[in-house]
Each structure stands twice: as C-alpha cells, then as structure tokens.
C-alpha cells in the first residue's frame, strides 16, 4: 500500500508570534519550527497502517523557504521517503492545493493523509481542494479510520457527535486529534535520525500556480483590557458574582 502524508512546517504551539517589518509575515527570529501537530498524527496513522498492511510512506511538503525541517523530522520518525517542493506561497490554500495536486497527480497513492488543518493559517481546506483536483473522494475531521480491503471505514467529527462514512480507495483523509484513540506519537530516536540521513529526499521546484487569495496585512490582536484580581479564596466569591452581575452584566 502506497501512502502519502502531507506535512507542513509551522511555528511550534509555544511560539510567541511577532509581525515582521513588512506587515505581511511573521518575524522568524526565535521561532522553533515543528511539523504541524495534526500532520504528526497523520504520520502516526500512516506508520501504523504500513505496519499492518505493508507498503511505503512518502512525506510531501511544500515550503516557500525551501526548508526540509519537517521532512527530515518525519524521516527520522519513520517515513520512508520525502518529496520537498520548494516554492509556493503561505496563507493561500488554493495555491498550495494546486501545487500539491500537480506534484502527486501521476504518483499513484492508495491513501493521501493530511492533518485536518495546519496550525499556522488554520485554513482547513487544502485536503478538500487537493481531493477535488485529483477527482478523489475525501473526508475531513476523521476521528476513526479502519481499512477493509480496498475500502476505508471512517468517522467524521461533527458538533455533538460523529458521522460514519465508507470510502473507496484511493481517497483523501484529513485527521482530527483523537484518531483511532492514538495518544502517543512517536518521536525521532537517535537511531531514526541516523537512518534518516540515508533515506531518499527528492527536491523539486514548485510547478506554476494561480494565486487565489491576497494577504494584505498581518497584525496582532488588540490587547485585552487589563483585568483585576477580585480577591483570595472563598471570601472573594460574593464580590465576583456581584461584578459578573452588575458590572459585566453576563449573568
């Protein structure tokens, strides 16, 4: 079984975001880069599927700065091969989808796994757009995935519940946290890091694409008005309730 996992390099969740002087990008100084957490879950699921069904896991990443940080880490975690696409543009899911679709179109994958969204642009669309471009069925927000021959039995999260869906392979699936009850992701081991150096990492320039969105401005949210400590312990409860009722008027 040939599995493709799509990976994005993003600032770690602990990163403090500062805006760069151009007003349209973030200041990279001091940022720790990581694989987007939902993409890490996609890697974990792919590796488990491979362990059961055999085959190969290929990581695909498009990076405007041409960085291989995400793919190197994924290779160390255990994927077999990487494809790094240098170029593209951040915060334009339409453009990213065009690039990814044209790169993977002729590479025959049985299953294309994404994180449900990247935690930088939070767009939640690239899997759907790629599926549409490739003419493949897809589901987003997958919380349960079981292979049954050439079909996939899935659950998709909705508000207050889940929907059950069956898809034929090949298909596109985007992963939500909690997939198959997976709590433990694997991390790169020293052995994995050494082994990664010998694994193939193909590099290619981004194919031509049409931008769909224009990023005009990036800004920090306004500061919250300063709050106050009402008091200490149980004694402060009465004053808190009074403030909620009379000052904030939220009760």
């Amino acid at each position, binding site marked *: 079984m040939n599995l493709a996992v799509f990976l994005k390099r993003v*600032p770690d*969740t*602990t*990163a*403090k975001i500062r*805006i760069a002087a151009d007003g349209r990008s*973030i200041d990279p100084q001091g940022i720790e880069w990581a694989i987007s957490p939902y993409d890490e879950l996609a890697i974990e699921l792919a590796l488990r599927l491979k362990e059961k069904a055999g085959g190969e896991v290929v990581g695909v990443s498009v990076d405007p700065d041409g960085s291989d940080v995400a793919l190197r880490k994924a290779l160390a975690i255990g994927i077999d091969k990487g494809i790094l696409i240098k170029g593209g543009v951040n*915060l334009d*899911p*339409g453009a990213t*989808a065009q690039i990814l679709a044209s790169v993977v179109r002729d590479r025959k994958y049985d299953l294309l796994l994404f994180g449900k969204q990247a*935690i930088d*642009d*939070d767009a*939640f*669309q690239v*899997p*759907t*757009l790629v*599926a*549409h471009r490739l003419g493949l*069925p*897809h*589901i*987003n*927000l997958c919380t349960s995935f079981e292979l049954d021959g050439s079909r996939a039995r899935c659950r*998709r*999260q*909705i*508000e*207050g*519940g*889940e*929907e*059950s*869906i*069956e898809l*034929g392979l090949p298909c596109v699936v985007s992963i939500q946290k909690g997939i198959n009850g997976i709590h433990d992701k694997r991390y790169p081991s020293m052995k994995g890091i050494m082994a990664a150096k010998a694994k193939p990492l193909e590099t290619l320039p981004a194919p031509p694409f049409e*931008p*769909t*969105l*224009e990023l005009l*401005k990036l*800004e*920090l*949210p306004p500061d919250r008005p300063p*709050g*106050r*400590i*009402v008091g200490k*312990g*149980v004694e*402060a*409860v*009465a004053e*808190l*309730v009074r403030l*909620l009722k009379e000052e*904030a008027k*939220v009760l």
Partner: protein
Amino acid sequence: MNLLVFAEVRDGKLKRPSLEALSEASRLAGKAGSKVGVALVGEGVRELASMLGRHGAGVVFVVDSPRLRHYAPEAYAKAVVGAHRKLGSGAILMAATAMGRDLAGGVAAALGTSAAADCTGLWIDGGKVFARRPVYAGKAYATVGFRTSPAVLSLRPNVFAAQEGTGTAAVEDLEVAFEEADFRSAAREVVQTAQGKVELTEAATIVTGGRGLGSPENFRLRDELASVLGAALGASRAVVDNGWRPHSEQVGQTGKTVAPNLYIAIAVSGAIQHLAGMRTSKVIVAINKDPDAPIFKAATYGIVGDALEVVPALTELLKKVLAS
C-alpha cells in the same frame, strides 16, 4: 453584489451560526443595495424558509431530497453551486461549523477558487471582497482579499449578531442533477450525538477545567458549575493529553477556538496555546492557586485560591442568585 448564504440544518433545525451569517449578509447587502439568497439543503427542510426570511433572506433556493438527509460533501457543494449560478452571487457565506468549514472547501474547489475560513470580519470595497480572519490560532489576524470571484467564506460562530425581523422570502425549488458520485463520501449515519449538550464553539458561556483540578473525578466541580450556568464544558490540552477528558472539549490551538460572553477557567495555567483559543471571549474569569499563572493576565476577574474550595462556593452562590 449579490450574496448567497448556505443554511445548515441539523436534526430538523436551522443552526444558529447560519442565521448569524445570514444576518451579516443582510447587513452587507443593505449597504450595497444587493440581493441575499439562501441555499437550503436537506430532507424536509422547506418549512424552514420562513425563518430565513425573517433573518433577511430575499429568496430561498430549496434543494430538498431524501438523499440529502445526511451531509454529503459533493452533493451539498453541487446544490450550493446551483443556487449560486441562479443568484449570480459575488460572495458565498456559511457558518464555520464542522459542516460549513468542510463545505466551504468543496464549494471553493468546484468553483476553482479557495475559501477564507473562520472569518471574524468581512466587507466589500470596489466590487472586491475582503475578510479578516484569525491565523496562528488567533495569535495574529490576517486581512485577505479575494483574487477570484465568487469569494467563499465561512464565518466564525458567536461573532456576528443574528437579527430577526419581519421579512419574508420568496421560495424557489431548485432542481439539481445529482449523480451517484456525488454521494460517494456521504455520511451513512450520525452516531453518538450528544443530545442536549451545549456545543463549545456556539456556547454563550463556557466553563473550562485544567490540570490543576488534580484528577478526572474533580471535573465534577466543573460540571456542576456549568450546569448551573447552562454552560458548555471545556478542558485544557494537558487534561486531554492525560486522557482525563475527550478532545472534543479541548480549547486552544490544537482544540477549539471559542468566543463566548463568559469564559470561566478553573485551575487552568494559561499556556500561550490555550490563551490563543479563548482570548476573544468577552468576559474571562480565572480561578487559580498560583497568583503568577499567565491566565490572570488575560482574565477580566481573577480569584487566587484553591479551585476545589472556590468552585463549589461559586456554584452554590450562583444557584441562589440565578434562582432569585
């Protein structure tokens, strides 16, 4: 510029965030002197058209079929695109719910464009559509302009006000030529519906518990406070990663982003990824033992104290106050 809104129906009811999106479309259209249409898709949904009229729809395109009882991404996208062609819309709006965010991508794909997800502001200027939306889980905001038409947008719940008036909408049945392939990723059934539970992203009040509660059993204190307030239940990432609470309750960067009127954080330290997910709440209350916990920087009101003592006292007092 005409505006089309997708009306989401779950369990025979219109979802409130869809009415918020419709009200916003109606406000925008009022300024621009343009038409507002709604795509109403599902099974047995026709009777909901009058409510859409009261929220500003000029025309409701009804696509009603037993096959549309459950969400089918391709079929629903086709129905919305059909309504769009009929109306000639320059922007297609929907709520940023699980269905809306999924559908926005599908509609954008079918129209060869992309969508702006989870918008907190939108405006039309010189015939072009612009949107403001959170990125990095709300640590920053992006202003984007659409290079392609129509613009497809999903709107964050609880940000735009739903407005009910006395308007009526024209109702038009829309024939859509569905094919077998349109149902290849359709939901077969809805499972494990949490009946009667308040959904986090749509809740007016949220009570969130953190690791400081000490044990899964102590979340009873959170639940009791939430029950008195009619609030939705939230949890911090640490709690979810420990397996104490399900991921569906997680608030923050790898969970849900919320903006209720009142957010009560119990024994939550306030890691940067958590603050990103709740900092736009209107009023934030923090209860924490540690006076230096970062959550107090975001809080409107804070109590420094042991949540195991403070929360039951708060629950008791609120019971009395809300009953009077």
